[in-house]
């Protein structure tokens, strides 16, 4: 495809404040308009999604006095996928006195993201990180504590300071429960109207401003409209485009994709994080992949046999025949290199024919030496629940047999483009958490996703939403407006079309093929030729989808196949944009690895002269086919000098 880029696009005004980095957020908040407390109840905010970003935003806005409506795809807001995060949440508290600071967390995050994030956003994230911990503790989040009763920290994912707060292996659940409690308190007080089992199927834009959504009630199939003065999408990432990922089954791209098709630009869609420590695929029935917390790499040693095709069982492979390749290649970081590097190296070992296990699609994560050094009880205390989870899934005991791990899709750094206020290119449409293209650049560091979701919801949006509510004229719009009727009609027509295909293959079956094509051509190692092949496969699959899909039943009932079909239809389109973006970005950075662009040592080779920007794609249609215009937001690095990342 030939791409004409619009550099420094007028559509992409970041609204980043100027001045000293450490004062920008403060200055910006002072410059923002305010809505006075008595007027807040006049404004109606619609929040879609109840993960960390959505629940924290909805609760905080309701506490301030706004009228809030919340849509939730699950039966309860507490089930959103934030709940599955195991490891922890970063903050620059420096409680351990090991040299951490807001500046260091900012620096590590910019560098970890391989210089593809906005500096001012990342600095703000590091600044509010400390308030997040205070807020969560005040809510009763039971973080780990030491015997003095104070909070415990650990180091995580390549950080050289201990800045990660955690709650056993379920930090995500505890933080989400904190936000969920705050949300349910507002529901109980009548300040939030909560609608569970609702799936947003389209965005309604009136006179260029986002004024609501059309959703489907999932138990009876009714199509419903919700009008508001501002719409917040907090609907998570799109890793499930790969079918197999660590994401939950409900996690999908429909909300952001529909908004994209209504005019919201999509930023860096190809930036995908592939997590190095997941339980490998065991069979074709596999429905999802399970993450093993990255904290395991603190004590486990990663290795494969030195020679290809060595099929001996691990206990029969002597030390001399093992290759502890991360320790060999990265003597100073060893097994703790960032996620993108650990993942890519594992793939290389498997591609060389040195993979292990029955499928030869795995590497070992071995605790033998740690158990010899510290004793099994110590290891059990640290990782007992993870070892148990591993054994339950694989029937192997990691105390005696090394774990088999392999990378899996985990997080998407790309998402809808937003300015410093978290507002998309559609006025009145705000995007929070993983759903936006966010603060993680081309690679997210461990324990930073929870931080970003809560920063957006608790502290950023409560301040920035006023820029829209107080700054624009918002004539009263109700769901009787013609535009709502129009969109409802379009949603109904799409559902009818899915039901009418009457083909032979299930949505899951087609989705699985899409995932394989994406994994093969737009996964850990991407090449121009491979991406072209991937694009052809995606287009062929999309055609087959619309000819050969089978959905039984009706729209007016609980119909899981119909729900899945709608999501897969959108994944089939998003996949194409991801491939185009990956093909366009002729450099390697973070999780985006183009095999043509690497250093002699096989590390990602950025091209700062040509690609130090956000690629934001505008959807258009041409003769019924999807086309995209590319807009660029240049990134400048004033505080953290652009250098080649090195973890040697």
């Amino acid at each position, binding site marked *: 495809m030939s791409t004409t880029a619009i550099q420094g696009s007028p559509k992409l005004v970041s609204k980043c404040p100027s001045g000293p980095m450490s004062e920008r957020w403060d200055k910006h908040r002072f410059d923002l308009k305010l809505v006075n407390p008595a007027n807040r109840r006049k404004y109606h905010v619609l929040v879609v999604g109840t993960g960390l970003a959505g629940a924290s935003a909805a609760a905080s806005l309701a506490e301030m006095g706004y009228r809030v409506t919340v849509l939730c795809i*699950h039966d309860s807001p507490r089930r*959103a996928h934030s709940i599955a995060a195991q490891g922890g949440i970063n903050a620059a508290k420096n409680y351990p006195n090991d040299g951490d600071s807001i500046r260091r967390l900012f620096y590590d995050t910019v560098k970890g993201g391989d210089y593809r994030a906005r500096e001012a956003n990342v600095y703000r994230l590091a600044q509010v990180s400390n308030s997040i911990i205070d807020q969560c503790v005040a809510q009763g989040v039971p973080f780990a504590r030491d015997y003095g009763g104070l909070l415990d920290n650990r180091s995580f994912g390549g950080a050289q300071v201990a800045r990660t707060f955690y709650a056993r292996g379920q930090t995500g*659940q505890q933080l989400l429960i904190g936000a969920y409690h*705050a949300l349910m308190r507002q529901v109980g007080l009548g300040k939030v109207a909560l609608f569970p089992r609702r799936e947003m199927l389209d965005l309604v834009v009136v006179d260029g401003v986002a004024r609501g959504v059309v959703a489907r009630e999932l138990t009876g199939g009714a199509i419903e409209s919700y009008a508001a003065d501002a719409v917040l999408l907090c609907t998570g990432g799109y890793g499930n485009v790969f079918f197999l990922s660590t994401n939950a*089954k409900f996690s999908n791209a429909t909300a952001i994709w529909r908004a994209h098709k209504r005019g919201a630009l999509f930023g860096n869609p190809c930036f995908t994080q592939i997590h190095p420590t997941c339980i490998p695929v065991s069979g*074709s029935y596999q*429905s999802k992949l399970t993450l093993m917390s990255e904290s395991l790499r603190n004590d486990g040693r990663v290795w494969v046999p030195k020679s290809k095709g060595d099929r001996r069982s691990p206990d029969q492979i002597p030390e001399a025949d093992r290759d502890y390749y991360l320790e060999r290649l990265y003597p100073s970081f060893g097994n703790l290199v960032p996620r993108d590097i650990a993942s890519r190296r594992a793939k290389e070992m498997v591609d060389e024919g040195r993979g292990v296990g029955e499928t030869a699609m795995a590497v070992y994560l071995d605790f033998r030496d740690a158990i010899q050094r510290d004793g099994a009880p110590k290891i059990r205390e640290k990782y007992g629940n993870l070892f148990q989870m591993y054994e339950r899934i694989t029937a192997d005991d990691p105390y005696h047999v090394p774990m088999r791990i392999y990378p899996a899709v985990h997080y998407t750094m790309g998402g809808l483009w937003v300015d410093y206020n978290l507002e998309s290119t559609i006025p009145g449409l705000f995007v929070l958490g993983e759903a936006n293209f966010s603060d993680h650049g081309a690679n997210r560091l461990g324990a930073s996703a929870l931080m970003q979701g809560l920063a957006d919801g608790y502290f950023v949006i409560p301040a920035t939403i006023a820029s829209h509510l107080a700054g624009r004229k918002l004539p009263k719009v109700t769901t009787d407006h013609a535009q709502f009727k129009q969109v409802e009609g379009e949603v109904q027509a799409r559902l009818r079309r899915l039901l009418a295909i009457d083909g032979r293959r299930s949505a899951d079956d087609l989705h699985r093929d899409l995932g394989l094509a994406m994994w093969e051509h737009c996964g850990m190692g991407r090449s121009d030729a491979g991406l072209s092949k991937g694009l052809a496969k995606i287009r062929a699959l999309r055609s087959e989808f619309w000819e050969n899909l089978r959905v039984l039943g009706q729209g007016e009932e609980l119909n899981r196949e119909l729900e899945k079909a709608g999501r897969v239809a959108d994944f089939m389109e998003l996949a194409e944009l991801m491939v185009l973006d990956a093909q366009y970005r002729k450099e390697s950075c973070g999780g985006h690895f183009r095999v043509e662009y690497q250093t002699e040592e096989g590390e990602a080779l950025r091209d700062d002269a040509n690609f130090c920007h956000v690629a934001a794609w505008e959807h258009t249609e041409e003769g019924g086919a999807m086309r995209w215009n590319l807009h660029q937001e240049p990134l400048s690095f004033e505080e953290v000098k652009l250098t080649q990342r090195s973890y040697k």
Partner: protein
Amino acid sequence: MSGGHDHHSGGLNLTLHVWRQKDAQAEGRFETYALQGISEHCSFLEMLDQLNEQLLREGRDPVAFDHDCREGICGSCGVVINGQAHGPDRETATCQLHMRRFHDGDTIYVEPFRAKAFPIQRDLVVDRSAFDRIVSKGGFVSVNTGAPQDANGLPVPKENADLAMDAASCIGCGACVAACPNAAAMLFVGAKISHLGLLPQGAPERRRRVLAMVEQMDRDGFGNCGNIYECEAACPKSISVENIARLNREYIVASACERPAVERIGD
């Protein structure tokens, strides 16, 4: 991720009796299905996925069931398997149960969680919003987003923090209710009362919280604890029945000390 293969020999042949019910109003019944060649390495839900693929091929309605994370933390899934909520394995949610637990030729009964407070919506899907209603009445600390004190300004004895964490690990799946002959929600409510009550942050609202939550629990039609402890046995997170004892103690103290009318809390 790609290129996986089924490394089982032949797999399991199973007879399934699955509860089918069109919607909340319709009458339900068991339907019987034969499944062949199920890998012992797949999870119980992946077995149901394969049943649904088979039904779809045959032009029959797939079985609706709730599920999401499939790693035992979201609490969405949950069915009664051969009479046991979440099936035969202790500390295991349905999604984490694997087919190696079963044998070739087994007959398996699959039913929804049954309780008056959890109306069936379709097949194996039930409505557990009663739990959210209980939480909305008092299952929180009334603190607005803002600038609370420094997180380390309030030390919590490690023993209390650990006990609170034990209780907070509840995933809200509702297996405790399904397993209880009285369909009581006291393990769920007890866990919430313990989590918040054991921490200094939750102390100011202790009494009002327990009264308000129990009142809503009764209003939603949950039963009372009969000390049978099936709830703890079915709980995928092994929440202890000690939490029910704590709930009872807190309730008695609160009933004796508070004015009878429960004020709306959270303001």
